[in-house]
């Protein structure tokens, strides 16, 4: 067969190229542009090389905020993934009860982020909030605006309340996709409940769990509004996460060069960790 060579065919790639350029490359290049220059105003830009990056990486405030961010995302995954699977396993398999359960569970997902923050800010107050008041009534001293541990627990609890339903819904759909024959075979093979979970349900939830882990990691790693409304990052800076630090830097201090460098690093961390999760899970049983 003769291969026809016509370089004009490259024009066919143009639409995709333009799409990617406008959706990702050009906005990103703006940030790259700011991250390597010191810009005072129009026409007053100085190339500074990697200076911003160096100063960012050495910034104690940012390092603390990064550690907090990792701890927070770690807890989010550790709590929400198992809890979501558990909730999905307990939900009725079908019928009106199943539908009702789905609706009830999905409600937190429908509430806007800043409303979630406001709800918990009031709900957890010791004087007028049912939750905070109730905890105090039990004789436990609880005050999320003053105590670091309480603030952390409240932020975590809020995120668990808001986002575990997403994991649960994903797992529920995964569970529903398992054919009845597998459960029948397991029953015949006298498998225990645990064995059914370990060898039938969990392996078949793998693909939805990849999605759940990635979504929950990315979202929790970029969390901003809810803790901002709930605690404002306090007490002190104990619940100040990365995006709040970034916003303060970019808008509060108008430190655009450093903020741009920081944005790029932030982006790369999210990309790297997501890639790590994805490869770890998909490679896990590729051998043989």
């Amino acid at each position: 067969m003769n291969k026809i060579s016509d370089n004009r065919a490259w024009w066919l790639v143009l639409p995709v190229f333009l799409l990617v350029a406008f959706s990702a490359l050009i906005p990103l290049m703006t940030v790259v542009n700011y991250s390597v220059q010191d810009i005072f105003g129009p026409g007053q830009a100085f190339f500074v090389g990697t200076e911003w990056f160096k100063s960012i990486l050495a910034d104690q405030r940012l390092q603390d905020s990064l550690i907090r961010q990792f701890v927070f995302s770690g807890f989010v995954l550790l709590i929400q993934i198992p809890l979501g699977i558990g909730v999905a396993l307990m939900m009725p398999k079908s019928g009106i009860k199943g539908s009702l359960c789905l609706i009830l569970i999905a409600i937190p997902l429908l509430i806007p982020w800043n409303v979630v923050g406001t709800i918990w800010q009031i709900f957890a107050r010791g004087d007028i909030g049912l939750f905070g008041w109730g905890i105090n009534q039990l004789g436990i001293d609880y005050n999320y605006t003053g105590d670091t541990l309480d603030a952390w627990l409240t932020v975590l609890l809020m995120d668990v309340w808001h986002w575990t339903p997403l994991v649960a819904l994903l797992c529920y759909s995964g569970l529903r996709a398992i054919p009845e024959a597998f459960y029948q075979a397991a029953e015949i093979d006298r498998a225990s409940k645990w064995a059914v979970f370990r060898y039938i349900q969990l392996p078949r939830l793998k693909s939805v769990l990849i999605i759940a882990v990635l979504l929950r990691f990315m979202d929790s790693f970029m969390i901003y509004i809810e803790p901002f409304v709930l605690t404002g990052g306090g007490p002190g800076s104990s619940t100040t996460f990365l995006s709040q630090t970034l916003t303060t830097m970019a808008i509060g201090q108008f430190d655009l060069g450093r903020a741009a460098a920081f944005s790029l690093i932030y982006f790369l961390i999210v990309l790297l960790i997501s890639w790590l999760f994805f490869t770890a899970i998909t490679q896990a049983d590729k051998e043989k």
Partner: protein
Amino acid sequence: MAEIQLKSLAHSYSDSPTGPDDYAIRQLDHVWHKGGAYALLGPSGCGKSTMLNIISGLIQPSEGEVLFDGKRVNELSPRDRNIAQVFQFPVIYDSMTVYENLAFPLKNNKVPADRIKTRVQEIAEVLEIEDKLHKKAKNLTADEKQKVSMGRGLVREDVSAILFDEPLTVIDPQLKWKLRRKLKQIHEQFDITMVYVTHDQLEASTFADKIAVMYGGQVVQFGTPTELFEAPNHTFVGYFIGSPGMNLVEVERCAGGVCFDSTVVPLEPWQADLLERMTSTNVKIGIRPEFIEVSAISSDDTYESEVLDVEDLGTYKIVTVRLANQEMKVRQNEEFEADLGSQIHLSFPKQWLMLYVDEFLIQEQQR
């Protein structure tokens, strides 16, 4: 190992069955004896799989009782009935290797580790998958997967019975025959009660000592392949077993026997006697193509008929003839020659002429 008895069993998938049509199984009494190799034969939708799932406990029957060695087990789960079942389509645990799949039922039964090892090895050898033992089960081909599925059913030694639900559907033909022999060997070796569901009569008769034929939610006959062939208890058995099936002709009572289209067929005195005492008008006679005799000359007990078609099937011929207005099939050996449209003379040997009233066989013992 156990004797499995089904007592006035009925099952409906609807919560409030209104008529017999709502039932997948209707009033059924049956006994599977200890240690037998049985086949459950019937067309799709006749209730075979339902019956199997009721025996294993995956389905609770709406009415009646399931007894294992005389003990009621209706309320017991498959787990407690200690029964093995192989499904139509392969079910494997895909995160496990083949070895782990086969060992799984044994592990769940707390069989000692060294026994698991020898037993899995044994079964893998029988099924010829010993070279695949350490492969991930999900990377196997469809028939290898089904072998693993079957292996999981066969691997336990202490089961009450092993139930097979059309297990060879996904297996290719050459292997099918081999695996069926294997199952038979396993049965002879271990003497476990086995019930094998199929819609293929050949599969049923090569596997089983006795076959239960199911039709419309009932077991219409339970017998050896020979019994099913020689004395079908129900017109459906006559039609379903044999290829081609039995010739069945609707007849009326008349002087000297029964008749159709003014052709008189004489009956044995006991047959005539029994027929006289029945009121039903649904009367049929049946004779197998293999038992019809053909002669070139006419005599008192022959019927003249016209040859419509001769099919050569290699080792024998199937002749389609018209007797009065009825088409019939006659099986003849290779030497048979006849021109289309020519006349031949048929006779129906008395011992092979069956009489059916309301679709059921009239037998001499009924007198």
